[in-house]
């Protein structure tokens, strides 16, 4: 198998996010460090606000909601009626990615094209609504046309249906790491020649169920009267702001892109993931394996896009492992938290990181870590606070960790 010689490149990006639709707008927001967190309007958050340790006045919940999102502007009205929010977000991202890659999925290409999507709670709202309708109205009064939305692979499958992609269709639900895992899986499929092109990325929608889930686990930043305590790597950090969106990359083999006359935006040079009894161990193993696959050493890495999300543990663990793997180099390499600008998009976050790093490689900048002010003695790396750094980079490492013990890494290169 020529799997280890093939080179997988990114030739198109489609993003729908609170900080921009389309790669240019998304990259600009990252470069300018402009976040977009607002009070939630999609659903009533009062149940959540009333629960837990609500000392003092009730706070409206702030999140990274994509406001005024109208999928029909992109997709037309046909077929949208039974599509849930995740599906709409993902289908729009797919359209943008295909346009960006100047790719038409013709009948001949269809069998050689695949879809690989990270999503874990993407269908949770649809599942819950369906179930609650059965409880409240009785099982015989549930709308059967909503049943297909209750499988987690529904958004990815809709992408295949809408864009006629028949090669394969995979959904991966490894939580915070799912976006990176979906991209690694896709790259493997291209290397093994199972597909020429894969649309790979992730999606999560903002919904009451996901919000309440992270709230119950104490992972959301306290709302603090509308300015949540959200500061990745900062010693005051207490949790994340939940966000939403979809990011899909067009991945293909370098020769395939060349034959189409398309210039690669970035290269997926290595990737790996691991689970173990210790999250630190998992992350270490995954970084080392990803570096090894890319043929690089820590000295080659110019930038680390961390999955830091302002929770006590994640930011600390990622910092610690960077120090263990990079040794003295750890203090040389800029490390930043894209999530400080975008918020926590959970299973989409790794896909957004790949989109962000592609922008960093293309435009020559390092996205900043916003709101970083108070130093945590244990988190003492160069976090690129407040402002993006204009700097040309060749190679970047993306990392992602999940509290359940799995971690993923991707190494990217400038083409």
């Amino acid at each position, binding site marked *: *198998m020529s*799997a280890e010689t093939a080179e997988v490149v990114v030739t198109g990006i489609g993003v729908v996010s609170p900080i921009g639709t389309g790669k240019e707008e998304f990259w600009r927001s990252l470069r300018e460090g402009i976040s977009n967190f607002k009070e939630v309007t999609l659903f009533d958050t009062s*149940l959540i606000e009333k*629960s837990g340790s609500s000392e003092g006045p009730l706070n409206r919940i702030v999140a990274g909601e994509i406001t005024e999102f109208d999928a029909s502007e992109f997709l037309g009205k046909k077929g949208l009626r039974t599509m849930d929010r995740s599906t709409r977000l993902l289908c729009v991202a797919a359209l943008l990615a295909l346009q960006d890659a100047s790719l038409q999925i013709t009948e001949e290409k*269809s*069998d050689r094209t695949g879809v690989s999507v990270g999503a*874990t709670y993407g269908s*949770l709202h649809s*599942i*819950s609504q*369906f*179930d*609650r309708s*059965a*409880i*409240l109205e009785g*099982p*015989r009064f*549930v709308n*059967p046309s909503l*049943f*297909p939305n*209750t*499988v*987690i*692979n*529904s958004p*990815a*499958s*809709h992408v*295949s*249906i809408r*864009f006629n*992609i*028949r*090669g*394969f*269709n*995979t*959904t*991966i*639900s*490894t*939580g915070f790491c*799912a976006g990176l895992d979906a991209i690694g899986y896709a790259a493997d499929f291209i290397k093994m020649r199972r597909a020429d092109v894969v649309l790979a990325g992730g999606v999560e929608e903002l919904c009451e*169920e996901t919000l*309440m889930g992270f709230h*119950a*686990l104490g992972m959301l930043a306290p709302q603090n009267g509308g300015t949540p305590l959200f500061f990745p790597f900062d010693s005051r950090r207490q949790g994340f702001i939940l966000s939403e969106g979809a990011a899909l990359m067009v991945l293909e083999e370098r020769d395939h892109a060349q034959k189409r006359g398309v210039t690669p935006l970035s290269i997926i040079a290595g990737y790996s*993931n*691991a*689970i*173990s*009894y210790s999250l630190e*161990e*998992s992350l270490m193993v995954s970084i080392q*394996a990803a570096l090894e696959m890319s043929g690089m050493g820590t000295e080659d890495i110019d930038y680390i896009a961390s999955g830091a999300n302002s929770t006590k543990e994640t930011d600390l663990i990622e910092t610690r492992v960077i120090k263990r793997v990079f040794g003295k180099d750890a203090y040389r390499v800029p490390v930043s938290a894209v999530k400080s600008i975008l918020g926590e998009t959970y299973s989409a976050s790794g896909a957004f990181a790949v989109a962000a790093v592609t922008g960093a490689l293309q435009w020559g900048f390092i996205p900043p870590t916003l709101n970083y002010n108070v130093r945590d003695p244990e988190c003492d790396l160069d976090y690129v606070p407040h402002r993006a750094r204009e700097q040309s980079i060749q190679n970047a490492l993306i990392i992602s960790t*999940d509290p*359940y*013990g799995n971690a993923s890494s991707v190494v990217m290169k400038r083409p």
Partner: protein
Amino acid sequence: MRRVVITGLGVVTSIGTGWQEFWQSLLEGRSGISRVTSIDTSDYPTHLGGEVKGLRADDFLPEEILSRYCRATQLALVAVIKAIEDASLRLVSPVAITYGITTGPVQVIETINDKYVRSETPYENPHLFYQLPPNTTVSAISEMLNIQGPTLILSTACAAGNYAIGWGFDLIRLGRVDLAICCASDAFSRISFTGFNQFRAVAPERCQPFDRNRKGMMVAEGAGAIVLEEMERAIDRRARIYGEVIGYGLSCDASHMTLPSVEGVVSCMRKALKEAGIGPEDVDYISAHGTGTPANDRTESEAIKRVFGERYRSIPVSSIKSMIGHTMGAASLLEAITCALVVKNDIIPPTINFETPDPECDIDCVPNKPRKKRVNVALNNSYAFGGNNASVVIKKWALP
């Protein structure tokens, strides 16, 4: 090219825990369908399902561990324990863990919804939410076995088990690991029971795949686990080898969320055969997706005719869903286990409840009685919502 063999099997179903009991039941044509007790079915048009009754998970795991996990995870843990035991394996990391699901911790979602509709704030129960992501299961497996390695959770609905086997197979062939634990589970789900009933897709009395009077599927639960091992390693340690995985194929219908497509299924089987380096003439047995719904069985029969041409009637095609119902994410994994046992033992389990032939399904469905036949190659088909298809090819193993 590294070769991948199956060296351990673990099963939790309505007709048996552990492969020996399961296999015995399959050959006897025993049905595991019974009256549903985990939910109140009085408002539903049908009342039967394939629940796993009398499983004493605490025979396998201490109560303090069990109480941390929902039913889907518990079922998976028991299947994995049985598979590791069966492989008589000393685990040395890295070991891949791949896990297939449809909804995963569905019981948790349902409990949260029960509280929600009563306007109780379910949020004050972090334990419940802790179990919500399906990572809970792989995390529990990694912790229980104290292993480290690559992992994926494949949530490709009713084909998830085959996807999980496929990725484990890839990792061993690519040389990233020598061992993979591929498992899949789903618990009996009110959501599935509601949805399939609203689709008029649930059989009121029995599941009769390929029968002219078939009335639908049976919603069920279960778990399966397979230990995949690099062949040389398995030979060196004199492992019992059930069979060899020689390839798999994936395809997507890209046409409809729920209606199966002949073209999609044909493409999936052809890809699997191509990757396995064999032709249609080499296949001796097909484990059908065979849900027992009118549309599925008709589509699948038609697809088999297209792929196998004139030979189609000479290939036995059976559906164990006639006995255990549709175990959702676990289904194709349990069927892969069945294929491994078929190539090992040269006996084919029947499709039970078969009475009236259907001219549209005139394949040989091995009606009602098991059949002795030499089976060198078995093809395991699975199709899912979203048009996600996956077929795995399992071959009789012989010393190279």
